[in-house]
């Protein structure tokens, strides 16, 4: 577990005059599930956008799997083995699930074999939807398709932006089960408001507050931290 | 400054003012429609020419006094707008990315009107000239200016001022501006969004019609002015910031002066190239425009 997968140093991002991220440092080891929490607007999604190359930071460096990925394009970062999901579910809605998966295989870092695709689809219980347009599926099913499209690329790190957002409580339970098994397939970075997800999955938690890192540590310690409770968990956001 | 140079200078200023105020009117009309219903109306130039041609028919063919004709032309735009809104525009209000549908739709309208104009007015004449609103000449320093053109300028500026007042102080204007800024928030505050949509569509087109009839009163025109006007109004709107009335007025004035100045020293093609170049640069590097709301 002392093999560093993601190494973020002093990343800052401003939008106009507003500082969204103020010098964030963060280290994630291979196999370690990292949870990121914080109120709305604290910069969590901006952080993921910077790591995945969608947003260029004003300063700071990101290295992934031992290589610097600062200033590279999303597709290059994806090919390096870093993948992500979006807060609002995002699939090719007009295309069938099969076509979605085929698209994910075209430029994959290390495309899964046909058998491996079938195995992942069976594990996610989405096989029976393969010929439906992805946009016609339920939110839960679309989340499963999202995971399937990422997993067939055999990523090293998967960044999940609120993976249970909008799901019913039964679906949240199912998703937590899926995600805990997912830990065996790749390293996970997860943004969540639902503390249950963080508590059950994360090995380490980072709290973001107005673009700054407020605290970092094991979930039990963080969720009991008085500053975190005062500033975040005590508020309606959590 | 020699007398000749002074005359050139003054005539550039006066032409720039008249053209600028008319450009501003049309661009304001386009920007009101875009800002509220997200419709980039590429047919604005055809509407502009339609107004001018209607004015020509009323004054030249029917012998109506130009002032009354101008009021009638602007009046006619209202039922036309509401009809168009009812048949075509309304059905896209809830379509995502409707600006591209509207854009293509307005290109279709452009083509239809182009055909209609060519089939009807195109056979009658190449150049159209309306009788003046008022006669006489006023000397500004050494430069003689037709009172008619001064009248057109005064009218154009008054309409612009009235629009500002309407959008800023009147109940309807405030509703339109609320929808400009945020459709959902406006709906929550009790603004009837759909009604404000059709109102802004009609208002925007009325302003374009006003620009068309005023232009026809000041200058002779031909059918090709339609496409030039479309492109110019779009350039003004994009550079000024889509939806920004103030931006449309300022950039419209700048364009009027540019056109007047460039036409005295170089060809109008250069002016067209420069507008298009400016628009491309803004599109690429600051698509929200210079005066973004």
């Amino acid at each position, binding site marked *: 577990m002392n093999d560093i997968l993601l190494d973020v140093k002093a990343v800052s991002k401003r939008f106009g005059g507003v500082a969204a991220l103020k010098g964030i440092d963060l280290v994630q080891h291979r196999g370690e599930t990292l949870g990121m929490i914080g109120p709305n607007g604290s910069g969590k999604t901006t952080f993921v956008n910077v790591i995945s190359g969608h947003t260029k930071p004003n300063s700071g460096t990101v290295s992934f799997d031992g290589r610097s990925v600062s200033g590279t394009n999303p*597709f290059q970062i994806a090919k390096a083995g870093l993948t992500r999901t979006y807060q609002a579910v995002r699939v*090719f809605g007009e295309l069938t699930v099969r076509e979605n998966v085929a698209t994910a295989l075209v430029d994959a870092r290390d495309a899964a074999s046909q058998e491996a695709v079938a195995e992942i689809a069976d594990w996610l219980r989405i096989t029976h939807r393969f010929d439906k347009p992805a946009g016609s599926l339920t939110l839960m099913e679309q989340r499963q398709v999202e995971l399937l499209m990422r997993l067939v690329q055999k990523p090293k790190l998967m960044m999940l932006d609120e993976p249970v957002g909008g799901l019913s409580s039964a679906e949240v339970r199912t998703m937590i089960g899926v995600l805990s098994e997912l830990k065996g397939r790749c390293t996970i970075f997860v943004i969540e408001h639902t503390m249950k997800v963080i508590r059950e999955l994360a090995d380490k938690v980072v709290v973001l507050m107005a673009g700054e890192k407020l605290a970092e540590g094991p979930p039990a310690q963080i969720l009991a931290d008085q500053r975190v409770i005062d500033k975040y968990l005590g508020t309606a956001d959590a | 400054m020699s007398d000749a140079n002074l005359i050139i200078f003054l005539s550039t200023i006066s032409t720039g003012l008249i053209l600028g105020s008319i450009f501003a009117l049309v661009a304001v009309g386009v920007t009101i429609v875009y800002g509220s219903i997200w419709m980039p109306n590429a047919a604005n130039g055809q509407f502009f020419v339609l107004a001018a041609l209607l004015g020509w028919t009323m004054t030249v063919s029917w012998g109506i006094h130009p002032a009354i004709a101008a009021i009638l032309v602007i009046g006619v735009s209202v039922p036309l707008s509401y009809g168009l809104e009812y048949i075509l525009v309304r059905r896209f209000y809830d379509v995502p990315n409707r600006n591209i549908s509207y854009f293509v739709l307005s290109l279709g309208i452009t083509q239809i009107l182009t055909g209609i104009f060519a089939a009807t007015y195109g056979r009658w004449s190449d150049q159209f000239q309306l009788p003046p609103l008022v006669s006489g000449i006023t000397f500004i320093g050494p430069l003689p200016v037709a009172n008619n053109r001064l009248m057109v300028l005064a009218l154009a500026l008054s309409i612009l001022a009235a629009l500002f007042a309407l959008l800023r102080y009147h109940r309807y204007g405030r509703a339109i501006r609320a929808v400009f800024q945020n459709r959902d928030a406006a709906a929550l505050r009790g603004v009837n969004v759909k009604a404000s949509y059709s109102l802004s569509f009609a208002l925007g087109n009325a302003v374009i019609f006003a620009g068309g009839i005023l232009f026809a009163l000041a200058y002779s025109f031909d059918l090709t002015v339609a496409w030039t006007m479309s492109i110019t109004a779009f350039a003004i709107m994009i550079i000024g910031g889509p939806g920004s009335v103030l931006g449309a007025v300022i950039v419209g004035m700048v364009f009027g002066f540019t056109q007047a100045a460039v036409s005295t020293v170089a060809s109008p093609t250069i002016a067209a190239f420069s507008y298009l170049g400016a628009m491309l640069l803004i599109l690429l590097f600051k698509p929200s425009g210079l005066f973004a709301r």
Partner: protein
Amino acid sequence: MTPVTEKKDLSLLAKGHGLPLACFAVVAFATPFLLSGNRYFAFVAGVTMIHILWASGMNLLYGYTGLMPLMFAGLAGISAYTVVGLTASGWSFWLALPVGALAASISGIILGLPSLRLKGFYFTLCSLVIQTVVTLGFIYFSGLTNGDTGISQIPLPSMGGGQPLSGLAYDLVLSAAAVIGVIVLIVIVKSTLGRRLIAIREDDELAGMLGINVTGYKMIAFFIGSLFAGVGGALYAPYIGFISPRSFDVLISMNIWLMVAFGGRGTIWGPVIGAILLAPLSFLLQEYYTVKDILYGLLIIAVIVLMPAGIAGGFLRKKKESAPPLDVPATPRGAK
């Protein structure tokens, strides 16, 4: 049972386009013979073939990549003027054609650069501005283009024995160009390039996140699409014998767009049908160009209002939904 990914198998019959393609090829090559008794109808058919080529190129950009390039006719014009200029200075047409087509392609890449920053309406507006600038350029640089007057009496290309390529032979060349164009489009769409372009059309940010080089493939789409425009423009000039800035203005771009949208964007055969229906119409109505304008305008509005997916698009969507769901996704996939 279809595999998740298409195998690297480009045999067209297996993909369901074989039969229509065979029919189309037969009709395309038979038409010049059937109409050889009537030069006027054969000529209209030839012009239609050029429009099939153009519509297929526009379809690659608009239907499959999701960009609406209203400077398409301008690109065809760049090629046409290049070819006419080169042949006038002594070049062989067959040498000038690839040069002209390449000129269109390179211009297409450069003029397509705004698509990297602008989406939807803003790109379309930008392309409209570019088209207007190109048209103004054709008028303004009259030393090369003879301005608004245009260039007339463009000589026919010569065949092997110094004979001019005329009548039936030229018609057959145009048929071949149309058939080859459609085949190229089918091959692209069925390849991984097509899958990447569709992904970019559907959601370019997501496509990039899945490892697709969005910038690179947009440029490739522009290169190929503009090549279609360029080849069509090069063949058009000597065939008609006359070109002017009006031959390649924004209305022509809109007409080609309409063939794609009316027939059904993002399908192989829709735009071909669109071109077959609309290209002769515009030619037969040339005497009544005002009627043509009004008709085209009405069609544009009808397409936008009634069938956002076009004729073939709506048909295809229905068929897709009624297909029975399959339970198993997998058959062995070709080696990567």
